[in-house]
């Protein structure tokens, strides 16, 4: 297994690690968004979906632990690479004129770290139910299920909370617009026939995630989705 460790630690192997974990995380983001969009289908739909997820029991924990591991690998690898890259240029240029790189590509570490902070808040908010939001978290619907629908709606009725979600999604959009396109190149997929698709994949998926995820707090704030308690 010596060769495998060497592969993972190498500059090219590290790219593959970022790309594969990134791909899995994008998959999670999309699946999470589609699940959550059921809030528009009403209280019954989303509460039943949430209850269904909980019923998975041990499988849910497998998924959760898997997800945590993927996250940790993605973050730890990114931090390692950033510190190596910083060390690789000990004296900075007086003048830098970027030609090809984008704001998104240069801001990956920054957008990633802010998203990590948002993730902590998001988990506290809707998964662990701690802090000042406890009251909404403990709601139960008529069938005795966790009332996800009202938890989300009541949560987003606070403008500060809703705005923080929108801001986080703007950062996620920025992160994905470079990340998704970039992962094709990292995995060695670069071909004149398909590069158009690869270059579009990042911005398109990032915009989908932005629009889909922001539609929920905005709809609640606009009064289009109302609480039932």
């Amino acid at each position, binding site marked *: 297994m010596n060769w495998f460790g060497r592969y993972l630690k190498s*500059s090219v*192997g590290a790219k*593959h690690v970022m790309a594969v974990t990134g791909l899995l995380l994008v998959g999670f983001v999309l699946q999470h968004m589609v699940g959550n969009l059921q809030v528009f289908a009403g209280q019954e739909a989303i509460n039943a979906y949430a209850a269904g997820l909980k019923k998975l029991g041990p499988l849910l924990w497998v998924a959760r632990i898997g997800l945590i591991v993927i996250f940790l690998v993605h973050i730890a690898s990114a931090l390692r690479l950033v510190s190596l890259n910083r060390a690789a240029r000990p004296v900075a240029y007086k*003048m830098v004129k970027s030609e090809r*790189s984008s704001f998104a590509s240069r801001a990956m570490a920054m957008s990633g770290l802010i998203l990590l902070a948002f993730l902590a808040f998001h988990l506290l908010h809707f998964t662990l139910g701690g802090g000042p939001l406890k009251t909404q978290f403990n709601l139960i619907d008529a069938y005795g299920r966790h009332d996800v629908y009202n938890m989300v709606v009541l949560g987003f009725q606070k403008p500060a909370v809703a705005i923080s979600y929108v801001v986080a999604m703007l950062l996620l959009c920025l992160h994905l617009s470079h990340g998704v396109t970039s992962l094709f190149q990292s995995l*060695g997929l670069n071909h004149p026939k398909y590069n158009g698709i690869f270059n579009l994949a990042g911005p398109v998926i990032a915009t989908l995630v932005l629009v889909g995820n922001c539609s929920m707090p905005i709809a609640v704030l606009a009064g289009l989705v109302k609480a039932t308690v």
Partner: protein
Amino acid sequence: MNLTIYVWRQKDAKDAGGFEKYTDECKGISEHMSFLEMLDVVNDRLTEKGKMPIAFDSDCREGICGTCSMVINGRPHGPWKATTTCQLHMRAFKDGDVIYIEPWRSKAFPVIQDLIVDRKAFDTIIQAGGYISTNCGSAPDANSMLIGKEVSDSAMDAAACIGCGACVAACPNSSAMLFTAAKLAHMNTLPQGKPEEAQRTLSMVGAMDSAGFGNCSNHLECEAACPKEISGQVIAAMNRGYAKASFGKR
């Protein structure tokens, strides 16, 4: 034209270095001069004043040797596309311009003096696998080894790399992937290089990593800065090849 230039002056590798401003020495510069000829004029005038001339690298001065190496106003080899510093002409600038001139900045390319950096790290990468092994003997028959036009073209495109290091200088991470990938694409694409492909890929990437270059995050600034317009596609090929070599080689 009259210019103001700020040049990085550094006595030796240990000196901290800093920018020096020159205005008197940059008066009456002809737009027909190359950038290096402009520096030659500045150096003559500095020498007349009894000052140390600016040390910079140059050799062929026709854009094929890859020796000249300076960052001009934030771009390696200056503002022109697909042009080395020696082929950059002063008509790229106008009267009254302020120009910042800096050496390549990378831990793997330590400054020797002023604008001259030590690019030995590239030699180390080449030594690790930038060759093919073959038995000597009488010359083989012509056309005994058929190579498709597309294959030879793509190998030739990669072989256009002159090893100047502009890719490293332009990369926000100081990565040398465009250089290494160009050499790998050049060798690995052709039948003569195929037998050693896997070992070459592993060795050259290994040498690149231990030289202290940064990691690639697909900004592709290298591709934009390359005076020979090597495509980032070679990096993708290296990404594939490295996985194949790591997992496949016995």
